[in-house]
Structures are given as structure tokens and as C-alpha cells.
């Protein structure tokens, strides 16, 4: 990855992720997050993690974020208009975050960071090498993950299913007309 491209992507990533936490409207935050994710996906591809990069775009940006969008719509959340209380928390949170970033930068930059650079083959990051690692060394973890996903699906359905006579079912007409059409 050329340095220029990296700088571009890095700036996009940082600005977009700041956008996630600074904008008022959740949809705008979500859009920023999608941009962040896509920029990170491109960085992945630039770092020879081609398959993982595309999966990031497909799974994260293409599926998980749409789920977020749905929930924002479903709950009909507007922009944050409530009182902006907890100023103390914001202040101290900002200070603590600044302290953490200072520490992490010291921690992660030379001379603490010592990684031996090892070259890698041409097929590095290809779907074949990923599959070989995944289905040999990490096969158990892989299978367990599949079970985790199954559990998550069942759990999500069980949690979000509306029982008869629940509160929202009665007041559905007001808040979420979309649900009736869907």
C-alpha cells in the first residue's frame, strides 16, 4: 500500500470515526461508521488481507450496519434533543480518553514495539491460505463459532419476538407504522 493511500485512508478513518461519536443524528453516525468500516476494509486489502477486507465490507458494512439502520428506524429514534446532562462525565471521559491515547501511543510506538519483519508468500491472505488455517488449526473454534451464530439467531428471535398483549402491540399504530406493512 503506498504511503499516500495510507495517509488518505487514515485521515478518512479518523474523521469518520469522530463523526460516529460527535454527530447528533443516529443515522448520520451510522453513515460515518459505514465509511469508517469501508476505509478500514481498504486498509485490510492494502495490508494483503484481501479476503478479510472483502468480508469486512460484506459482513460489517453490508449486513451488520443495515441491522443497525433497521433498529434505528424501528425505534424511530430522532436526533438527541434531550438535556445534555452528565457534563462531568463528558469532561472526565474526555480527559481519560486523552490519557489512554497518550499511553497507547507510547506503548505501541518504538522503542517498545518490537516486531521482526518476516516476509510472506504471494498467496498470503488469499482465500486459500485463510481456509487452510481456518479448517486445520482453528477448526474447533470455527465449529464453535457456527454454533454461536445459531444460538445468536435463536436468541435474537426469542428476544425480539413480540408476545401477545405486549405494550407496543397495542400502541403500534403510533410509533411504528412500518412494522404493520412489513
Amino acid at each position, binding site marked *: 500500500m503506498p504511503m499516500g493511500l495510507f495517509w488518505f485512508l487514515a485521515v478518512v478513518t479518523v474523521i469518520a470515526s469522530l463523526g460516529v461519536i460527535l454527530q447528533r443524528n443516529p443515522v448520520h453516525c451510522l453513515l460515518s461508521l459505514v465509511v469508517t468500516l469501508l476505509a478500514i476494509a481498504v486498509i485490510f486489502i492494502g495490508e494483503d488481507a484481501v479476503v478479510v477486507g472483502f468480508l469486512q465490507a460484506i459482513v460489517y458494512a453490508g449486513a451488520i450496519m443495515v441491522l443497525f439502520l433497521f433498529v434505528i428506524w424501528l425505534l424511530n429514534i430522532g436526533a438527541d434533543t434531550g438535556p445534555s446532562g452528565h457534563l462531568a462525565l463528558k469532561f*472526565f471521559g474526555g480527559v*481519560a480518553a486523552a*490519557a489512554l491515547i497518550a499511553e497507547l501511543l507510547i506503548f505501541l510506538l518504538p522503542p517498545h514495539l518490537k516486531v521482526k519483519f518476516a516476509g510472506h508468500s504471494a498467496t498470503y491472505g488469499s482465500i486459500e491460505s485463510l481456509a487452510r488455517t481456518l479448517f486445520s488449526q482453528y477448526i474447533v473454534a470455527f465449529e464453535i463459532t457456527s454454533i454461536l451464530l445459531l444460538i445468536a439467531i435463536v436468541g435474537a428471535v426469542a428476544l425480539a419476538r413480540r408476545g401477545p398483549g405486549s405494550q407496543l402491540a397495542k400502541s403500534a399504530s403510533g410509533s411504528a407504522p412500518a412494522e404493520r406493512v412489513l
Partner: protein
Amino acid sequence: MTVEFGALGLILLFPLIGVLFNLFLGARLGRRWVNIVGPGVIFIAFALGIWAFAKILSMPAGSELHYKLWDWIEGGSFHVEFGLRIDALSAVMVLIVTGIGAFIHLYSDGYMAHDADYARFFTYMNLFALAMLILVLADNLLMMFVGWEGVGLCSYLLIAFWYSNPEFAYNGRKAFIANRVGDAGFILGMLTIIAVLGHGGVWSLDFGTIHRHLGLFTTTTATVACLLLFLGATGKSAQIPLYVWLPDAMVGPTPVSALIHAATMVTAGVYMVARLNFLYMLAPSAMMVVATIGAVTALFAGTIAIVQSDIKKVLAYSTISQLGYMFLGVGSGAFAAGIFHVMTHAFFKGLLFLCAGSVIHGLGGEQDMTRMGGLRKVMPITFWTMLIATIAISAIPPFSGFFSKDMILAGAYGSGHFGLWIIGVITAGITGFYMFRLLFLTFFGESRVDPERLHHAHESPPVMTIPLIVLAIAAAIGGWVGLPDGFLWGDLFSRFLAPTVGTFTPTVATPGVLLSVIALAISIVGIIIAWVLYIWMPGLPYLIAWRAKALYTLLLQKYYIDQFYNLIVTRPLFFVSNWILHRGVDRFAIDGTVNGTGIALETSGAIARRSETGNIQHYAFIYLLGVIGIVAYYLFLVMR
């Protein structure tokens, strides 16, 4: 020759299937399924056992079948595998366990027909069969111990089967605790063997390995190991001093008494001694102890049996007495004779219990012989089968008991234990007396049955009488595999077992037939006395009891052994449990500490809860501070 034989695993598998089926599905699918599956799995195991037995027969003498299920314990150089083996000895035991077990399971279908908890009953019974098979199939001492404990557990569960009766539950506990004492001995014996072998660099409990490294044992270590293991055997096989649990164990369902407390589990001790015969041969003094305890127990229990009036109690003391015979046999070095008696005893004692069960079942739960009599007409099949069993146990030829008892007495005499032989012969007479007393009281004479009960008295259904008939045939002709040498086909049984348990060579010249005649004569004398007392002059027993009141009371109170144990063991134990452990340690020290901790936490928590706002972001913030702290610690203190 050792052959890998996978069907050994199947022998264990089917009882296991039975356990799981009865445990999880039995109550749901109903009585019909349980009645088929419960005995069915044991019959299949029996068939597999016959297959293995035939395979053993077809192979050269001394060969064995082996099958390793999995590696069990891997601790450095210590290695135990979960392996199964069948040689001549365990083949006989497997046939006894599965064969008699199968018919007793079948009998239980009828006996438990009116009990609501049949699924639980068959679960325990199948579990017992599984544990007993593990015990006899084990190829190492540790695995044998697993089976040993397993049968102990099942025994406890089944004695206390009707647990809602506190006395029954108490008797179950008693059996369990008496066995625990013996098991402690077993464990110590096992540890002794490990210590001796490990000292010589051998880390295994495999029977074959122990056999190969016998040279590592001195007479002293072998004696210690043997005596400790024999302590385990006295617990499991109800010998002096740990026999007290067996009579009380009769409160369980009668098929349980027949299978566990007569035919199979209680012979585990004999089997263990025979299995380790090579070790016992190294320790003559231990052998002497075994033989003496066996003989004394035989006489001791026999005398108690004379005066008991509960039909099952008589049979229980008779069992203890017969087990004493077996130990007399193996203690004299006649291992094959001991195992032979295990087999014939399993036939006729199992049968006796089943007959007793049939009588009890027919009379609606009556167990007191003084309230029986004249049942010969009411229960013909039960009567005839019980007659065969009684003749067999009284050692009248050509019934099975004669041959095995004769072989044991010949062994005792041949090994030079003349005094023990005398005791054995006297016991034979006593046996004949009390067994025929039981028979006469139950089936002959005037009926003393409660008229109400007599009205309902009936012969048992075929599902119960068929096992009786099968076992009666076995009790009648089962002894013919061990005829005296030189007579017809001779002693097939000892020759079959010889590669495993060795051949008995008498050290003292035996007068052969004379010995048998003496023992037979004494038995017949005992029977005649019984006839005189209970048929010819039925008033005489009361007179004798009145005249020899002290002796009678002593016997009736079982030599006051229970009271004695109560005084020296149970009472102090309860005292310590109640006053020191319960009130002192539990209530004061432990509860005090726990409650004090709780109170302290409650108080401090009431103060600390103010910091809990319930707002997740506050928590996250604190968490963040922690992270910053940890990173700072590494950064400025560790990595610097």
C-alpha cells in the same frame, strides 16, 4: 494365548443400555417396555457371555480373551487401562452373573408387578449387573475396585429400595457403612501392591503384570496385602467381623436378595481371592486366616440360623455360612472348589430366595415361618423346586451342593486343617437341620397362616415359576461338572479352571470316599433331627427352647454381636458426630464463620451500594480508569 475380542465390550454395553433406558424412558414408556428391556438386556449379555465362554472352550487351555476399551489413567509411568478380560475364572463368573441374573430379572417382572417404582427397580438391577460385570471382567485391580464399589452402591440402593420406611433406609446405610470399612481395607491392600511393585519399578495393577512380577513380593508384604484385601472381602462377602449387614439387607425386595445378596455380589470376595490366588499362595499365614475365618463364620452363622423364624433371615444366615465354606475352600488352597461352590451356591441359594419370594408373594408379604405351614398343596411348583434346592444345599447326592461341599471339605482335610474340617462337617449337619426346619415349617404340617391371607394364597404366575424351574434343574444337575476324579467324566470344572487358579495338591493323604461318607452321614443326621423335631414331635422345640433358655436367647440374639458393635462403634460415632462435629464444628465454627462473613458483607455492602448508580457509563468510566492504570503500570514500572 491372548486374543482381542470386541464382544467383551458388548457384554457391558447391553446392561448400560438397560440402565439408560430404564432411567430416562422407563417410567415414560410404561411397564410393558420395562418388563421386556430390563431382563432382555441381561439375556443378551448372557448370550454374549455364552459366546465368549464357547470361544474360551475352543481355544487351548490357559488362553484368555482381552479387549481394551480405553486408556484410563495415565500418570507418568503409572498406567491403567480400562481393559476387559475373560479367562476360565471370569468366564464362569460371567455366566453365573448373567445367567442367574437374567432369570432373576425375569422373575422380578412378576415379583414387582404390583410395585409402582418398577422402572427405578430395573434401573438399579441393570446397573448392578453392569457393575458386577465390570468387577468380574476387569483386567486390573483398580477397575475391579470400580465394579466392587459399583455393586456396593447398587446393594445400598436396592436394600433401601423402599426408602420411605426409615428402618429399611437405616439397613441400607448399615450395609453401605460396613462395606466402606471393608473397602478401606481393599484400598489399603491395593496401595500396598502398588507400593511393592512401584518400589521394584513396575507401575501397573494389571493382574497379568502382578503375576509376572511376583518376585518383587516378600512373604511379609504379600501377607500384608492379602490380609488387607481379605478385609475388603469380609465386608463384601459378609464374613466375621463385618457380616452384620447381610441379615439386615433382607429388607430389600426378594429378587435383590436372591441376585445380589446370595448369588453374585457376596461372592465377589471369593472371586477376588481366587483371582489373586498367586498372591495368596505366597502368604500361607494369610491363607490360614482366610480358611479359619471362613470355617468359623460357617459354624457361627449356621448356629444362628437354627433359631430364626423369619424365612429370609434363615436364608441370609445360611448364605453367610455357605460363604464361609467358600472361604474355607479358597483358604485351603482349593480355589477351584471355592469357585465351584460359588456356582452351585448361586444355583440353589438363588433358587431358595426366589422360592421364599414366591411364598412371600403368594402370602401377600408374610415372612414369619411360624405363621406358615401346609403350603405344599397351595404352591406345588414352589414346593418342589424348594425341595430340590434344600436337598442340594444339604449336600445330598446327586444334587449339586454335595459335590462342591465335598470338594471343599476334601480340600480342607487335604491341606492339613483337620480342625477346620471338623467344623465344616458339623456345619454340614447344622445346614441340613435348619434348611429342613425351614422346609417343614413352611410347607408341611398344619397351616398356621392367617386365614385372611390363606384365602388369597396362590401359586405364583409363570413368569416367576419358570425361573424357579430353570434354577431347580441347574441346582439338581449343576454339580455334575465337578464329579470326584475317577468317577465317570471326573472333575471337569477343576480341570477347566486349572490354568487360571492352579490345581489343588493335598499335603495330607485323604481317605477319599470315607470323608464324603462321614459328611453325608452327618448331614442326614441333621435332616433326621429336623424331621423329628418339626414333623414327628412338633412340641419338642418349645420344650428345648425352654430348657436351654440361655443358649436359645444367645442364638436368637445372634450372640449379641449387633449390640456389641452398637456399643463400641455406633454410639461413640453418633456422639462424636452430634456433639463435636455437628454442634461444635458445623454450628459454631463453620456456620459462625459463614454467617459472620455474611453479616459483615451485608453491612459493608449497605455502605458501598451508594457508589452503584446503575448507569452503565459510570461503570465503563471506572473500568477505563482501571485500564489506564494497568497500562500505566506496565508502561512505567514493568517495561521501563
